[in-house]
């Protein structure tokens, strides 16, 4: 029996300062995804919500009475696990069609990712599992965590600021081909170097956007997917590996061990190795993560990703086009979901001016205390 699963519906809102609540945006994305798949609520029997305040209200407003429900905490590291979880439920026959729904109102709430917070905002704002060891020193922000990793990477390998800047400028060139991207003005390396430090060695353009928006994805079994209007985009493999022990401090290996493990797992599951991957959607909350991910997945030797990006390998037309939408640095920060949406659009051939010609296999990867990757593909 074929237990393959595929994306058949995709919906997204505008990304930006929208003045709307997360659940409202998630609902708009859900309705768009159901329309895209030409499904009615009664045909959806699985619901997974991420960063949504009330899965109950969302379901009630959309006529969903699923056989399978899951609600994940708001960290962006949960996006890969969300897809893995839903795919596993489908393969196990626990349900046949899952809507995965994400909403984010961090711009409207005024999130800064570094000023503390309480209640439902704490996950985005608070920092670390042991604040008594961090707060006295002003170690408050995930950006600082990434800055510490970059400073360490520099010490180990000599990664230059121009090399890192190539991530932001490459993504921006991609965003200029994406009408939905938030940032589409020209960004040169000199612009990058001239911008202020936020947490040195990270500059302004090393940080992702802070915006509102929603994304929804409908997953179903491949046999059902063949009856839907769009070409099925299969989930060929998904894997995760946590490094939660000691996660208040940056990992010594830049998460390379976890990345290597999940990369090998999806290659094994899919029968498609790294050479088959046509594009990579890499979790870029901060640009150093791109370098760590390229090295951890084995695209570059340790310490060589900066030069690799600077040489154009990650650009459209390069060896491995990355974040063809402009990524979270330029398109918008939907905690991985906009990158997943871009993978689906590229594999459907809907990439417009930024289409990767003949794309068959696209990888999503997130290096984090829960590292994950998902391999998407069209039938060979």
């Amino acid at each position, binding site marked *: 029996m074929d237990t393959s699963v595929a994306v058949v519906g995709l919906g997204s809102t505008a990304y930006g300062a929208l003045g709307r609540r997360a659940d409202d945006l998630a609902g708009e994305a859900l309705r768009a995804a159901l329309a895209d798949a030409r499904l009615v609520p009664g045909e959806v029997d699985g619901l997974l919500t991420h960063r949504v305040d009330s899965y109950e209200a969302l379901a009630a407003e959309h006529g969903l009475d699923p056989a399978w429900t899951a609600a994940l905490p708001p960290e962006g590291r949960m996006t890969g696990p969300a897809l893995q979880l839903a795919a596993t439920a489908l393969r196990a026959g626990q349900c046949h069609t899952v809507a995965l729904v994400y909403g984010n109102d961090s711009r409207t709430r005024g999130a800064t990712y*570094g000023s503390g917070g309480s209640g439902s905002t704490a996950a985005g704002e608070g920092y670390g599992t042991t604040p008594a060891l961090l707060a*006295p020193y002003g170690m408050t922000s995930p950006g600082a965590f990434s800055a510490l990793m970059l*400073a*360490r990477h520099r010490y180990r390998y000599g990664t230059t600021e121009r090399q890192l800047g190539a991530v932001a400028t490459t993504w921006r060139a991609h965003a200029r081909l994406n009408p939905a991207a938030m940032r589409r003005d020209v960004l040169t390396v000199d612009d990058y170097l001239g911008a202020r430090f936020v947490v040195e060695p990270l500059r302004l353009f090393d940080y992702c956007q802070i915006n509102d928006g929603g994304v929804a994805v409908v997953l179903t079994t491949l046999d059902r997917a063949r009856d839907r209007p769009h070409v099925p985009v299969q989930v060929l493999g998904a894997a995760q590996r946590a490094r939660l022990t000691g996660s*208040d401090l940056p990992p010594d290996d830049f998460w390379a061990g976890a990345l290597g493990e999940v990369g090998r797992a999806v290659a094994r599951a899919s029968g498609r190795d790294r050479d088959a991957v046509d594009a990579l959607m890499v979790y870029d909350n901060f640009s150093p993560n791109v370098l760590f991910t390229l090295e951890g997945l084995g695209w570059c030797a340790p310490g060589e990703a900066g030069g690799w990006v600077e040489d154009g390998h990650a650009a459209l037309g390069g060896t491995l086009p990355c974040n063809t939408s402009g990524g979270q640095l330029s398109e918008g920060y939907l905690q991985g979901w906009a990158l997943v949406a871009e993978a689906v659009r590229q594999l459907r051939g809907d990439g417009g001016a930024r289409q990767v010609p003949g794309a068959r296999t696209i990888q999503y990867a997130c290096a984090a205390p829960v590292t994950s990757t998902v391999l998407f593909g069209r039938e060979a």
Partner: protein
Amino acid sequence: MHVSRTVSEHVEGLRRGELRVSRCGACGVPAFPPPRLCPRCGAADAATWFTASGRGVLWSVAVFHRTYLPEHPAPYPVAVVELVEGPRLVATLTDPTVPVGCAVIAEIDARADPPRIAFRPDDHEGAAR
């Protein structure tokens, strides 16, 4: 997100001018902050506290140029130091230009509230590795 863990021994130690950190009392693996279960041997609530030498190596440093909280006006450095005894911890630096990889030694400001550790270059640096 904010899981409480018992670090009052560390904080109270700083108030006395001592750098108190923990290791597993059963197998000796460095484990700070103290875990409920040792990640190596599984011993429960077995962490034991000891006074560290204060010597270590600057693992990394970042400098905040943005003020997120009024009690921490920018610019200020945040350091990660690996102690010679094994644990790593977050602290500040007496001088933000100390290079990564430098041997450092702790100075404890016991009268600050909360008390804080600042590392400075270790001129003897026999402890560097």
